[in-house]
């Protein structure tokens, strides 16, 4: 029985990973570069489950060899713990980190000099991006490299992110935010641009939006930094790849 349950759990772990890579929601949890690893692991779990099932049947045959030195039977508590990721994975609808998770983290808003800097290994290619293709992280990196917020005055931008606000935001401002992830969501760090829009108060927190506008130098929380004056804001579905990668 214990062996059957273990086989089942190994198999279900494989099935769970297959499902998450299959429908793409694995990107809610880990950096894209580890998706191949998850594929391999899903196959690995199924293989190990098969091996476990095939071999454990054979091993139980000789009664003289009945002692279990390291093939420990798991107690009911052990099995419950092992079932936890499956239960959480299947019962809780997959959801990327949102505004609620920012409360626990330091936000990078492009304040110059002081922020925990992000230096992409391929900084050169980012510089070559057309303004419309730059994402939030690209803009923050550009702000940081330049040092002078006035350089960006009038530059057009088109970015996607979710709405975040806290006590520091006025009625007509919010932040369009994303998380950066280098390994898995355990190391997620929020980044965002300050957006000014007359109807900002109508946007619910956590709503994903496409913001089109241009930068002006403004002050936020006592700091001079580029603020995105929105011309158009379109509510949108969360992108398939909700995080930005360092």
């Amino acid at each position, binding site marked *: 029985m214990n062996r059957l349950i273990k086989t089942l759990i190994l198999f279900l772990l494989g099935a769970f990973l297959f499902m998450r890579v299959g429908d793409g929601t694995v990107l809610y949890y880990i950096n894209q570069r580890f998706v191949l690893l998850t594929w391999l692991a899903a196959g*690995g779990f199924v293989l*190990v489950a098969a091996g476990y099932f095939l071999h454990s049947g054979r091993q139980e045959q000789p009664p003289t060899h009945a002692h279990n030195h390291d093939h*420990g039977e798991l107690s009911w508590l052990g099995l419950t713990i092992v079932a936890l990721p499956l239960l959480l994975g299947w019962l809780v609808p997959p959801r990327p980190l949102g505004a609620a998770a920012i409360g626990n983290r330091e936000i990078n808003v492009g304040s110059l000099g002081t922020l*925990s800097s992000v230096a992409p290994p391929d900084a050169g290619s980012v510089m070559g991006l057309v303004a419309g293709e730059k994402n939030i992280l690209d803009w923050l990196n550009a702000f940081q490299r330049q040092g002078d917020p006035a350089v960006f005055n009038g530059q057009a931008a088109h970015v996607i992110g979710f709405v975040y606000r806290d006590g520091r935001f006025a009625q007509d401002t919010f932040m369009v935010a994303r998380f950066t992830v280098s390994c898995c969501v355990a190391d997620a760090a929020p980044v965002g641009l300050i957006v000014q829009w007359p109807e900002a108060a109508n946007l619910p927190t956590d709503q994903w939006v496409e913001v089109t506008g241009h930068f002006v130098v403004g002050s936020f929380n006592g700091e001079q930094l580029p603020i995105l004056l929105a011309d158009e804001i379109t509510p949108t579905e969360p992108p398939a790849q909700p995080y930005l990668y*360092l």
Partner: protein
Amino acid sequence: MKLEQPDQAQPEVQTAVSSPGAHPYGRLLLALLLVTAVILALARFATGPLADRFHTFTTIFLGIFIEAAPFLLAGSVVSGLIEVFVDRDILARLVPRRAAAAALTGALLGFAFPVCECGVVPVTRRLYHKGLPLSVGVAFLLAAPVVNPIVILSTYAAFGWGPVLIGRVVFSVLIAFIAGLLFTLATPEEALRPTSQEHDHAHHEEEEACDLALAEKKGKAYGRFWQALAVGGDDFMDMVRYLIVGSLLAAGMQTLVPQSTLLALGSGPALSVVIMMALAFVLSICSTVDAFLALSFANSFTTGSIMAFLVFGPMVDIKSSLMFLGVFRKRTVLYLILLPMALSLLMGVVMNMLAAW
């Protein structure tokens, strides 16, 4: 979860309650149902900050688990392959007798078994089964998550060829070497859990029957491969409990304790090292990728603290120290946490003082 389960569960639960010594599957079902009910209540019906926190917690927990499970599985399969294909005689012949040479071998063994901090635990346990000396295993356990080709490559990708890469490898080897040397003073019986120890020599005949490498020598390679997978499956199920509890703790800490509180504590030469070590402990991210994360802290934190993050994190974090409990006795696990902690702290602070000087 299936909804028809309550009806099926009922008779079994009752037998388990009426006769406590009976099969525990009634309890298992009861526990599963309870957990299912709590999760469903939180996921579907809770609203407001509680629901938000629960979803954040679940996402972070599954993130750590999905990231780490493949590495643990790989380590378990390697462990199974060792069980089936490696003779203990070969191991005994290859490991040096002298204490210093043995500890150094352990610290460099990661080049032979490229595993990260999740995979290293089942492999170490299996090598202990095969009679690996305690000190060599300790040095291997602590050093292998850094001193292996994959992690060296990812550190190189993040920091390039320079003091960070060299320092990370050298100090990891050094700390693991010191810990290994200290553990030559202990015996396997007092340090290891009974299930991790080499089989008793008094039962040598039984031992030979147990030693799958000997018992199945005549078996076909094909059959032995499946056998290795089966052993790996057992190892995985043994260790994954600790990984899960560790991931739950790490996700809970991240949901409840704001990172900004930790980072805002200070950037002094000593305090910054403590903070980055605490961060490494709490985050529990895999050593194969932590260099990229360290990079994002590199400009705002002292060099010594970044180095402590890169050296201490792979050796000890919430999930790996919980997994140690599957191999070592509790007191040994405490040493395995405190020793690298003290040495990494010393290294980081000295490095900062030298830099300031």
